[in-house]
């Protein structure tokens, strides 16, 4: 068991650190460091433009998408090297994360299912940030029942014609391309009638409408399809095999490790180190200490679990569904931390103005954003299903839709 870098790892870390020191947009260090939880806000800068510039700089020096093959714009690096990059990139990683859907989820799907020509055409520009991608999976009627999607794709000559609606599409408004899952056969059980495509987001018939979230941000969109045409050459995988293709995408969601998961612990620690409450400085209050200890133990547990996943990766093992615990733990914890931090401040805890509130109102932002963390990308309930069935091997719940043709499944309307 060894936590320190090997000699080679240490040297690689120094190389990265030096390059970042010389090339990172250090004028963004301060604003990125105090950026509220949720969407990035950088006064006086356009976050997407800054992100694209940083990604381009990295790509030109060979620091974009480290694990991708060099042919597709990557560096052909090892998993551990990639983790070291993520650790060293630090706050600038917030800029890079604007491409995470495309690079982390669309790209692995393209690598597995697109033609070599398509890979050569699309992947390098995805790596360099020149082209942005989104993922069109969720639908209003689906919710946690991802495979219950209704967007239709019908064959018409060499094209497919798409009609329907997607929702919760991150970054659709910035995107050049997207991967899209559709229903091509409603008369077979739900997992069997699906087909995956990629498409140009500027296609005729696409209408993108931002969703205003409960916290006032608009990071997601609804995307409407009205007779949108996609050439059959842009199909990913076989007709009717869309669910299997989507699993490639979703599995890669779990591999985005090494970056640190937001739990709220550093924020509340910073608060209670300073805050005065009735009994004195908050950090000295036994009630605060007890909660703080539990939260630290959880956040350390997540960090150490991630370290174990990295170890597994470096041995060529694939991290399994046990990594579902990360978001499950972090979501609830963030919500609890935010609630408790406000509570300690009395009425002034309600203030959300970052100029006035303690800690630039990051904990208030967390209060308003954390309910979504417990829902997006798999609700707490879905994650517990995954853990109990796929990790513990418990039997699945009774299913009302098993083996039933999609168009015969009860839907309440």
């Amino acid at each position: 068991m060894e936590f320190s870098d090997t000699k080679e790892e240490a040297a690689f870390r120094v190389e990265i650190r030096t390059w970042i020191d010389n090339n990172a947009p250090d004028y963004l260090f301060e604003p990125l460091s105090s950026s509220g939880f949720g969407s990035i806000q950088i006064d006086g800068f356009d976050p997407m433009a800054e992100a694209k510039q940083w990604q381009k700089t990295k790509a030109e020096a060979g620091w974009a998408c480290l694990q991708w093959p060099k042919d597709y714009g990557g560096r052909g690096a090892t998993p551990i090297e990639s983790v070291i990059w993520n650790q060293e990139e630090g706050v600038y990683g917030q800029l890079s994360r604007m491409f995470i859907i495309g690079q982390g989820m669309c790209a692995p799907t393209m690598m597995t299912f697109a033609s070599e020509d398509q890979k050569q055409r699309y992947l390098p520009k995805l790596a360099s940030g020149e082209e942005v991608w989104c993922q069109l999976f969720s639908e209003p009627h689906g919710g946690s029942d991802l495979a219950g999607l209704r967007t239709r794709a019908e064959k018409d000559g060499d094209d497919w014609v798409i009609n329907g609606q997607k929702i919760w599409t991150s970054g659709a408004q910035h995107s050049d391309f997207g991967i899209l899952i559709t229903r091509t056969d409603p008369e077979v059980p739900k997992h069997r009638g699906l087909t995956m495509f990629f498409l140009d987001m500027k296609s005729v018939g696409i209408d993108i409408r931002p969703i205003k979230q409960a916290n006032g941000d608009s990071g997601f969109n609804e995307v409407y399809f009205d007779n949108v045409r996609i050439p059959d050459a842009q199909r990913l995988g076989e007709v009717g095999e869309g669910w299997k293709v989507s699993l490639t995408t979703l599995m890669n969601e779990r591999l985005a490790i090494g970056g640190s998961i937001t739990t709220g612990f550093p924020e509340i620690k910073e608060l209670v180190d300073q805050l005065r409450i009735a009994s004195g400085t908050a950090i000295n209050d036994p009630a605060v200490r007890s909660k703080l200890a539990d939260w630290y133990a959880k956040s350390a547990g997540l960090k150490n679990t991630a370290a174990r996943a990295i170890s597994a990766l470096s041995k060529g093992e694939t991290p399994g569904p046990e990594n579902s615990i990360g978001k499950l733990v972090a979501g609830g914890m963030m919500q609890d931390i935010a609630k408790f931090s406000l509570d300690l401040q009395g009425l002034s805890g309600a203030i959300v103005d970052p100029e006035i509130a303690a800690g630039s109102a990051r904990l208030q932002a967390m209060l308003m954003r954390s309910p979504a963390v417990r829902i997006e990308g798999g609700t707490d309930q879905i994650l517990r299903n995954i853990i109990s069935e796929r990790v513990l091997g418990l039997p699945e719940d009774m299913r009302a839709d098993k083996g039933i043709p999609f168009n015969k499944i009860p839907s309440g309307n």
Partner: protein
Amino acid sequence: MNFDFSDDDKMVQDQINRFLRDNCGFGEFRSVLEGEATYSESVWRGLSEMGVQGTAIPSAYGGVEAGYLSLCLAARELGAHLAPVPFSSSIYLAAEAIQGAGSEAQKEEWLPKLASGQVIGTLAVTETVQEPVPEDITTTFVNGKLNGTKLVVPHGLMADVVVVLARTNDGLSLVLAPLSDVERRSIDTVDPTMGSATITFKDSPAKLLGQPHDGWSVLSTVYNRAAVMFAFEQLGGAERALDMAVGYAKERFAFGRPIGSFQALKHMMADMYVALKLAESNCYYAAWALQNDSDDLALAAATARVSATQAFQLCSRDNIQVHGGMGFTWEYDCHLYYRRSNYLTLVLGGLSAWEDKLVSALPDAA
């Protein structure tokens, strides 16, 4: 023994419910949320016409004198409908402070106007970004003039008169100040419909309310009494949030069945119900203690406050979870209850502070 509200009180509650249902829909609420108005004047006027503001104010001062049990039920409806009006600040805080500590002249001057809704009152305490302790109060009241800044005053945006905790010679006192000639600035909070403002007094005229130097202890009494009424608002909000969750879970299908048939969600809602029920029973007792000025009001109020805070926080939070992604849109109403629950948790000081008060109020052999 009869642990229930009277039919008369329930009838009044029902009238308020019907009025709010018909006149305080979410359009009304959202125009305040979106900043088109600071509060709903039409709802405020409607409540005035029904005499709701004056429910517990003696008829000698222009009130209806229907008692606190009735006022608690009114609070429950206001909470259920998230009524965007300065009721809590004006009635639970300002009117209570004046009734409890004011001179006869002050009562005669202000209570009738508060009772009729003609004047809106509030209470200003917090000056720093922390739970206030006496040392934090630097606003001064000297020679009839107030000087200083109150950081966050609920309904401070629209109040006409404010009870202010201020420093006098060598102690803290409550003083009463009309808000005609002060600087007020809107301050953003988790619930934009609470009309919060930062108010700066510069040689503003004011008058002592009650005895000098007993400001902190009178405040504590006002808070205990207000806690009961706020607890009923929280109870109303919690109940409505649970209703929303149950309604959605019955109608929304996933995996070929209503999501409300999944134990994970059913049991979550069962726990919401449990929290609500415990809070409701504690609120009932606290209402009785308030109405009867019972010796254990401090304990009953803290108990109701703690359990109603927990119930509203739980129900509003997990209502979002039951709604899934939809629950986190601006368009759905879930976040309005979540916002309100978090503001109401803090308005009289945080939950931890009330837990501490509860334990202090426990009899020696419980």
